[in-house]
């Protein structure tokens, strides 16, 4: 208890005059060591706030390592519903001695530090608000089993923080029970730990900071889920039947979660599965299996990250040219090469658009939210089969592995569309067919599936030159005609891919264009620009490549369009330059972030204002 007194009144005074209380608007950072089981405590703290009705987001900043290295978990609570990463930390929960000093140094004056007493962080600076907690003493009391203490310890700070922020303890208890639903003993232990923290705070900590969580009703009926789980569900409901994968961060959890869901919802009463999920030996094999399965008629997919995408280059060209549907999830992480495997990025956009040698162009979808991970799963399969070509869903680590709040996902009403497939009956009518003939003028030919019981059903799929019937051909005219038709499919796709989201009055001269997870920073930045700089902007969020009319029109309607993205070379801006009327390209401006942390609103606002020369 003495600990709380060590904070000298002066230093508290130095914090300047009394600050107005800050309610439901803060970001909390928990600094721990990975493998120390802090995951569950953090989830409990997150859920407790969520259950108070306050919008939240949780981001885990973890190392590419299994145990023993620093990890930071950031919880943002925002009454306004801002869920992008916030640059400034308001409350630091310092549990990791190795980084504690730096963590504290990074804080802005007036921030709050909740620390493990032995770390004596209050010595570091005198412009912060400190609370010390003797975790080891407390944990010893609640957890007789010494070897469990390391894990339990973390739940104590949840109790302390809850008390300091005035989070109703019943919400903490509820969250703990949910977290350990299947493990009664763990639940009891953790509950005791949280309680101990809570009680300690009540007895020993004098509230000296302005941050409070107060009940509101902005999370009613909402769910919390990560993008990979949402994608897994989406693919399951999209009728996916063959899944192949090779483990790679941050995509592994997509398939691992899918396995669980499929086992539960896609196994018949006879115990037989309506799916096959195969762990391949590498990404070449994974995509090869996807292509083989799709050719034979399955809705097949794989999930990977940058290195896997690069390894899939040759096969992607095969699928493009043989015209085979394939759905590939790229949960982007920081490249090039191995890069930063546990950091987020939008760095695969350009190389994926033109993946493989020769002339190739690929359809890409850009989900921004967990609900889009769910809905775009079906879009991806429908588009892949509609246009008989690979479709890449470009998610990222931030979306895929972090916790996001969302409305529950709507049941898909759109029936599954398998595209142009000829049945035995069709063939009996037609008598014959030419696999690569543009019958409907949309560039898309009709295909047959192996096993179709008709002597004319078969065709020869080959990655080498072929004519309309799929027969081997080296004729210049056959080749040229075929390539132009394939290009036509891409043009046709423009009016089938998801249309962009456009926000704003449409009256501003300034446009902002973004995609994927950058969206959340833009939402917040536009308000900052408006509030702080009286700068109104229009905003277009790209959902797909190729671009639709709206994208062109948007750029045409604005003097300047800032393209905001999380890579070095302005990859989306590049795709735009290659696609829009060349007269418009001078209107594009790039704002790029490449440090691997989810992009935040403040940086966007500052950079944009700088470029506006203000």
């Amino acid at each position, binding site marked *: 208890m003495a600990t709380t007194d060590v904070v000298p009144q002066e230093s508290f005074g130095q914090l300047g005059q009394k600050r107005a209380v800050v309610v439901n608007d803060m970001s909390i950072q928990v600094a721990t060591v990975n493998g120390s089981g802090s995951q569950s405590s953090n989830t409990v703290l997150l859920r407790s706030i969520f259950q108070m009705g306050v919008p939240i987001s949780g981001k885990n900043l973890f190392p590419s390592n299994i145990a023993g290295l620093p990890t930071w978990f950031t919880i943002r609570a925002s009454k306004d519903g801002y869920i992008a990463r916030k640059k400034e930390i308001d409350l630091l929960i310092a549990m990791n001695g190795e980084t504690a000093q730096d963590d504290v140094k990074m804080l802005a004056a007036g921030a709050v530090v909740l620390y493990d007493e032995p770390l004596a962080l209050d010595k570091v600076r005198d412009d912060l608000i400190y609370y010390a907690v003797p975790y080891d003493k407390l944990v010893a009391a609640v957890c007789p089993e010494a070897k469990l203490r390391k894990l339990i310890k973390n739940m104590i700070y949840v109790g302390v923080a809850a008390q300091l922020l005035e989070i109703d303890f019943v919400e903490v208890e509820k969250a703990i029970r949910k977290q350990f639903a299947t493990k009664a003993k763990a639940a009891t232990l953790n509950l005791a730990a949280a309680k101990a923290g809570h009680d300690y705070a009540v007895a020993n900590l004098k509230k000296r900071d302005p941050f409070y969580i107060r009940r509101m009703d902005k999370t009613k009926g909402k769910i919390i889920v990560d993008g990979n789980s949402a994608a897994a569900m989406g693919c399951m409901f999209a009728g996916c039947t063959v899944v192949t994968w090779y483990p790679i961060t941050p995509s592994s959890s997509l398939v691992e979660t899918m396995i669980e869901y499929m086992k539960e919802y*896609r196994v018949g009463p006879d115990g037989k599965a309506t*799916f096959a999920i195969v762990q391949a*030996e590498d990404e070449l094999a994974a995509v090869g*299996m996807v292509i083989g399965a799709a050719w*034979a008629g399955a809705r097949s997919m794989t999930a990977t990250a940058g290195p896997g995408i690069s390894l899939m280059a040759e096969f992607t060209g095969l699928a493009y040219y043989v015209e085979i549907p394939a759905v590939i999830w790229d949960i982007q992480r920081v490249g090039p090469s191995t890069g930063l495997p546990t950091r987020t990025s939008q760095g695969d956009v350009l190389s994926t658009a033109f993946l493989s040698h020769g002339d190739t162009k690929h359809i890409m979808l850009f989900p921004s939210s967990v609900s889009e991970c769910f809905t775009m799963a079906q879009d991806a399969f429908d588009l892949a089969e509609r246009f008989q070509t690979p479709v890449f869903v470009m998610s990222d680590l931030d979306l895929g592995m972090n916790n996001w709040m969302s409305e529950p*996902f709507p049941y898909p009403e759109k029936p599954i569309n398998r595209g142009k497939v000829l049945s035995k009956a069709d063939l009996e009518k037609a008598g014959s067919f030419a696999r690569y003939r543009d019958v409907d003028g949309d560039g898309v030919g009709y295909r047959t599936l192996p096993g179709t019981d008709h002597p004319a059903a078969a065709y020869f799929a080959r990655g080498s030159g072929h004519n309309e019937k799929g027969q081997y051909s080296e004729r210049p005219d056959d080749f040229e005609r075929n390539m132009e038709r394939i290009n036509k499919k891409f043009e046709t796709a423009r009016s089938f891919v998801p249309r962009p989201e456009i926000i704003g009055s449409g009256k501003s001269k300034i446009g902002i264009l973004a995609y994927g997870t950058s969206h959340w920073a833009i939402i917040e930045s536009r308000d900052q620009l408006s509030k702080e700089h009286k700068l109104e902007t229009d905003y277009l969020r790209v959902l797909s490549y190729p671009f639709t009319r709206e994208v062109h029109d948007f750029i045409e309607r604005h003097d300047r369009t800032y393209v905001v993205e999380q890579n070095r070379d302005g990859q989306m801006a590049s795709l735009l330059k290659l696609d829009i009327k060349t007269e418009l390209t001078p209107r594009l401006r790039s704002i790029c972030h490449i440090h691997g942390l989810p992009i935040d609103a403040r940086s966007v606002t500052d950079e944009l204002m700088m470029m506006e020369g203000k």
Partner: protein
Amino acid sequence: MGTTTTNTPVPAPKTNRIGLQVIDYRGGKTTLCAGCGHNAISERIIDAMYEMGLQPERVMKFSGIGCSSKSPAYFMNRSHSFNSVHGRMPSVATGATLANKNLMALGVTGDGDTVSIGAGQFVHLMRRNMPIIYVIEDNGCYGLTKGQFSATADLGSTLKSGVVNDLPPVDTCSLAIQLGATFVGRSFSGDKKQLHTMLKAAIAHNGTVMLDVVSPCVTFNDHEGSTKSYKYMQAHEEPLHEVSFVPAFEEINVEYDPGTTLEVTMHDGSSLRLKKLEQEYDPTDKIQAVHRLMESHEKGEVLTGVFYINEKAPSFVDMLNVTDEPLATLPQSRTRPSREALAKCMEELQ
């Protein structure tokens, strides 16, 4: 007298048990070199499929890239075929088999396609025991790129240019056996009867069939100094036994002497008969099989026959326990869970 035959009845064309003629199993005109071993193998495949009475529409053909990988275009035009990329056909065939396990998958490839660029996928195909017939048309070189050594070229064998191969060959058979394939053998494109018989047995097998068929490249590797030439094979082929095969659907019960002939009953009831030509050999014994292969390799003989067969092991598809209908064509009612299911998922996340 040709003139007098006009009014004799035209004999009904010969058909197989499902009423198809051999022509129904034919493919396009070959563009391979005259005399290429690969062409002979295509012929054997046609005969075997015809005699086994498989419906062509129930067969999927796969290949990688190479002269050998072109051959699927030269047999069974009525079967779907996928000529994929170099060295990665196993994954494509695996995927297709997952999508429709009720069709027969036949992969035809080369030694370069398999053991050079394809070594990785080959290893894992064997390991999974996927129900796929994998035929290597093995000429010890890269035919389509003009005859460089492949990884099955024997130590000391030479190119036409005289260049000597100083790397040891990979024995695809002993590899396949150790890795998990359940029907492994070697034959020679010139050994009509043996190859024909082994192919029929292969069709009856459930699981990965790995057949390494020595198939001379007449243009680049049929010279003195080649160990994959017709001459060399005629001199060094060493049949382990005489193979004969009686399909399940055939009534005729051929006599055989259990003392000299070993019978393997296959899972569909067909029987594979191996007439001993040498000391005791049990084709269901992995260890002995590999041992024998390594021995004969040291002796410099090219052992042919069915080296290993396992009719009990479940295939990868069996282990997946998927529904009986092909996954490829399941209706939405089977592949999209109910509203209740989604509600339940959502609830858990609230």
